[in-house]
């Protein structure tokens, strides 16, 4: 069972190897002549005013949180969907009803989030 995943490890090794080789190649072959001005961060040719690593608007975090909430629920849909025919055979419309309740809860949350304006970008 787990052996099915073994080829992935080999591919991972290949991919990481490729990345490191490419970066290394560029590192050793590419010329280098650093200068203080050249090494400044790019800001359209001007000296940057203030650094970039600062606190960002909470909007982005909100989207991330919403995503985690909804995505975890979507994950639950997959096993249900893969086994749906069996469930219907066993439980009839109960299979549908169970998921309808689950999705209903999800939907209530979704409507709440929409109404609260969390999906607006301003």
């Amino acid at each position, binding site marked *: 069972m787990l052996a099915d995943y073994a080829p992935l490890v080999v591919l991972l090794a290949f991919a990481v190897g490729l990345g490191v080789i490419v970066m290394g190649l560029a590192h050793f072959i590419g010329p280098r002549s650093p200068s203080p001005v050249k090494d400044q961060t790019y800001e*359209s040719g001007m000296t940057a005013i203030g650094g970039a690593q600062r*606190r960002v608007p909470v909007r982005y975090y909100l989207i991330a949180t919403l995503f985690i909430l909804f995505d975890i629920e979507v994950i639950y849909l997959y096993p249900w969907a893969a086994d749906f025919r069996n469930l219907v055979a066993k439980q009839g419309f109960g299979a549908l009803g169970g998921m309808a309740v689950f999705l209903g809860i999800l939907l209530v949350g979704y409507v709440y989030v929409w109404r609260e304006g969390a999906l607006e970008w301003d």
Partner: protein
Amino acid sequence: MTKQTDVVAAPAPADVVAAVHKQLGERVTVDDGGALVVGPSNLIDVVRALRDDHGLDYLANLTAVDWLDRFEVVYHLCSSAGGAPIVLKTTTDRANPRVPSLFGIYPGADFQEREVYDMFGIRFAGHPNLKRILMWEGFAGWPLRKDWREAYFEQEHKPLTSRWPDGQFFFGEDKLTDWGSNTKLPPAYTGAEIGRPKPQEGQYVVDIDALRRGTSFGSDRLVVNMGPQHPSTHGVFQMRLVLDGETVVDLEPVMGYMHRNHEKIGERNLWLGNMPFTDRLDYIAQLGSEWGYALCVERMMGLEVPERAEYIRVIMAELNRIQSHFWSIGFLLNDLGAFFTPSLYAIEEREIVLDLFEMATGSRLMCNYMRFGGVAYDLPDAFMPLVNVLVNERMERAIDEIDAYLTNNEIVMERMKGVGVLTPELAIAYSTSGPVLRGSGVAYDVRRADPYGIYDRFDWNVVTANEGDVYARYAVRIGEMRESLKILRQALPQMPAGEILGGKKAWQVRVPAGEHYARVENPRGELGYYCVSDGKANPYRYHVRSPCFVNLTSLAEMCKGYKVADVVAILGSIDIVLGEVDR
């Protein structure tokens, strides 16, 4: 969407001057040239009266002249309903030049007053942000004063001690200051505040301290420089943005990277020698720039232009307008993120027009075609058949095609509608012109408002749109291309034979002493030339009222509250050409 309006004729400037003189009594005098002269102390009152009581709501031009014993600040005011501008002058002494700022009355005076301060050192009391605009902060000298000698040409005074100290080439950037060590600085200037302007009370410059304050969520604001080295600033133009997330809180345009002191060089050149030089202003609409200058000098000289030359000028100028609008629409779409496809299709049409220019003038961009009293060369025989095919067949289809693909495109509409809205009142107050002003619903077109050439002979309309957003400006451009075609269709069959250059043949033009402000409707707006002659071989004062430069005054107002992506679209809709902005 767009509508066509006729402009009501306004009272002649002479009547306005007389009426003002009557109303304000001894506070104003009238000089020989018919200009109102007012002392600096009365300036604000007089201008307010002119605006409120006499309908002169549009500050067309603001500049200054150095008369060696005094500075004369010249204002050209006109009505947005049309009519020739009236001239208002005020003088100030050279030792401590100070004039009250008109910023409170005409916000459009903002950049123009900063330019005059930058070039002459005249301080405008009450201006909220009086600092250099074309030269860099810290530059020593006032380049347009008559006693300032041009570096490397007049050699008496150099702003730069040397371009290559130690006789060796080096990169100025490596000095890690904003300009390196090869600049002569004012005595008290330390340069400590470079890149971090300290805002004073009431200034609208980027407020660094506000960054720390942030918003209610405690996120930090970002100050981002867009430009000069940025893909969508149409050249070396800089916008300093204060962002809250992606929303623009404040914006300050910074320009002058391509400044070459065009006006000073123009004052060194001979009158005719300036003609090719005007091509370098707005290189997308080169023939319009030439026409404006030719018009100004012709009126000063009292020259008559022969019929055929007038027709050639109209044909060239309208072809010019079409190709320029093609260009700007194409690149507006580029700014919206369309990957070059619309612009390359637009450029294809433009290239055909440029081929015609090459045929007639010998050059595609730097045409040097107009002369005082006519044009330099007659049209070649092959020109007329080609231009007829172009005007009657090809162009119409090309415009229809662009119209069909872009105008009702959903993404294009969503990106352009309701973005960068400028109300008609603000558009007039900010002295905007061209498609920006007409996109705000003001039917102001110099060809109609203050007719020149033979535009009064043709049947055409001033295209306006009421929304004042990016989409309206786009729609105005599309409409104007069609109107230009309409003018061309009338002009081409009427074209008479005959002379192309009037006036006496002379090696050197003699321009009688005097002054004039002539303006033409260039694709980007009102292009004005203010020339002063003292009878010598070169202009005493040569000023270009650049539509792009003045239109940029309204940029900050248009952008606040919108997103970063909208800033790019708004800038694209103003359609600046840096050669003209920075001069």
